[in-house]
């Protein structure tokens, strides 16, 4: 507070004031608690305060962010916006929208999840339930490396790999022209799989061994034990991890610019033609001062989409959650 005065009033924003108030409150309550109740309670009180503060700190940007997106984006977010594409943007009296990007996002993300979730979960099961020896170490090694792949490098990887493979099937000139939704999915699979693996691994690790033993003792095979007891018990955690992983990749821009291209029109085919996704839509709309409104609405659409996915996943997780005590 003293320093604040020395600094003068210039530049004090509400945030700075709020931050200082919180710090001040925390310090004060801790000191009082220390004097009155003793060290342990002071610690407990301080930590509680810190934890609540942490939460507020985390929620504040979120609210601010969402507010920013909603207030800028809601006006354009109409049914037309969701069903039209961006073709004819510069023409007068033309309804433009992000329908093609929505379709692209759903297709690409869906395909990605369809590949990455089973792959990730199975890898995690292998690592936790079976993995010993050099193969497991190799897989762990690969997962560790994949965890750190920058998304843009994942894009470069897919862009380099797929045409090479596709050459065998469709001939070199067509393969070179290839920028498809599927290629984007491959890039995103590279990003999503390690997240799913890591998360699932942790969820499987905390399933108590006694449940596995209980199942084995009933003469249940290891594979069934894993699918019906272990995975089943860990399901809510796994679902939550998948949601996070989907959320993480659904907003990717950089690798998709390289792999799927951008287009102005609807494309329902993952294997031919450029495809637009909401993030690339937002990106290209944002890059042009004239279409910023569309960028906001696209962002809002994306957030709503994720919200919806989130809700669905939560309902699934809830239905399968372990019952009883907790």
């Amino acid at each position: 507070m003293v320093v604040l005065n020395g600094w003068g009033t210039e530049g004090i924003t509400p945030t700075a004031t709020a931050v200082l108030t919180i710090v001040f409150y925390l310090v004060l309550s801790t000191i009082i608690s220390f004097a009155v109740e003793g060290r342990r309670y002071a610690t407990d009180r301080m930590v509680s305060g810190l934890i609540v503060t942490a939460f507020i700190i985390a929620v504040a940007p979120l609210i601010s962010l969402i507010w920013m997106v909603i207030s800028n984006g809601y006006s354009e977010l109409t049914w037309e916006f969701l069903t039209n594409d961006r073709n004819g943007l510069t023409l007068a009296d033309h309804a433009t929208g992000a329908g093609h990007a929505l379709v692209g996002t759903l297709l690409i993300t869906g395909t990605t999840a369809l590949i990455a979730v089973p792959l990730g979960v199975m890898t995690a099961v292998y690592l936790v339930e079976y993995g010993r020896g050099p193969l497991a170490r190799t897989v762990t090694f690969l997962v560790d490396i994949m965890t750190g792949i920058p998304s843009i490098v994942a894009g470069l990887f897919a862009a380099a790999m797929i045409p090479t493979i596709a050459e065998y099937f469709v001939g070199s000139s067509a393969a070179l022209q290839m920028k498809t939704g599927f290629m984007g999915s491959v890039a995103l699979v590279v990003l999503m799989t390690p997240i799913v693996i890591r998360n699932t691994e942790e969820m499987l690790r905390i399933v108590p061994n006694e449940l596995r033993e209980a199942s084995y003792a009933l003469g249940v095979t290891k594979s069934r034990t894993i699918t019906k007891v272990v995975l089943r018990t860990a399901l809510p955690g796994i679902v939550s991890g998948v949601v996070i992983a989907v959320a993480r990749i659904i907003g990717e821009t950089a690798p998709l610019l390289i792999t799927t291209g951008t287009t102005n029109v609807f494309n329902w085919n993952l294997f031919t033609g450029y495809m637009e996704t909401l993030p690339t839509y937002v990106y290209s709309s944002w890059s042009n001062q004239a279409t910023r409104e569309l960028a906001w609405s696209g962002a809002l659409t994306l957030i709503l989409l994720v919200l919806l996915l989130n809700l669905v996943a939560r309902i699934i997780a809830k239905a399968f959650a372990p019952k009883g005590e907790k």
Partner: protein
Amino acid sequence: ACSDTSEGEETPDVTTDATDEQTEEETADDEASTEAGGSSELPTPIADLGVSGSLNGSGASSQANAQQAWRDNFSADFGVTVNYNPTGSGTGREQFIGGAVSFAGTDSILDEEELAAAAQRCGSDIVELPLYISPIAIAYNVPGVDSLNLSAANVAAIFSGEITNWNDEAIAADNEGVELPDLEIVPVNRADDSGTTENFVQYIIEAAGEEAWPYEAADAWPISGTQSAEKTSGVVDLTTQTEGAITYADASQIGDLPAANVEVNGEFLAYSPEAAAAIVDGSEPTADATDLILTVDLKRDGSIADAYPVVMISYIVACTEYEDAQEAANVKGYLSYMASDEGQQAATAAGGGNAPISDDLQSRVFPAIDAIVTE
């Protein structure tokens, strides 16, 4: 269109347009084989080329907005879906040479090796056409200052950090009657590699001399420790947000920011489409220019009267022959549209940021386009 079985070798071009039909393509090819009309001012009408399906291009991001307008109109008029990915000039050239796209947009001209490689890819000559002429504005954000004159020397001094305050005497000398505030100058440059940067630096070097600007012209900004942002929209946003900031950006995209007048022949000239187009006509072709490769060596030193010297040209590169006749027709049609008065005006009207090409230039562009073989 192309099914997902692997037998579709016949249709290399990807198609998203549901109206595309194989039969139409056959007949269109026959019609399109009309004789190319020599040096005529009007090339083959686009409607007669039998364009259909889709067309992919990529390259310079500077053209993105103009391309948007061209694509919208072209597909509205002729039913062809055109994709243009603003991946950057370098990638555009590379993809064109690699055969990944049918045409490319590029801010810098193809060098000798690239020309050779491109010719190899096409198996024929290539065309390189200056269809996008864009004035670069020197935009600033200084409260209370609506009009600002900057000599080339001052531009160099500001961007190299020699002059750090808006009330500097050197600036005041050119701006009598303007009250310049006591405000720190924040020069903003492009963080990414950019044709705009290269052209802007080229202008400084030519107009202010190597003395004032000891760095080479390259597409990366040469000075470190500066405020920078990605893409044109990035520098414009940053400048708009920052009092005291100054930047260089495609003139069409500077929004509400005022732009400085630059010194031309001792006078201060604001940018305008005509003034920008004028410099292209006043400059010499490059050494390797031909009838098909219409590259220009811009004369930016401010010696051409009424010609705005801070200009960037972005070229369109295409083959003169394509394996697939439909592809050739589409390219030819699209290029014709871009070069037409209608196309140039449409892009300008839609905020594409281009100065419409002059009639003189157009009369050289059309024959080049007509060299594209469609049969």
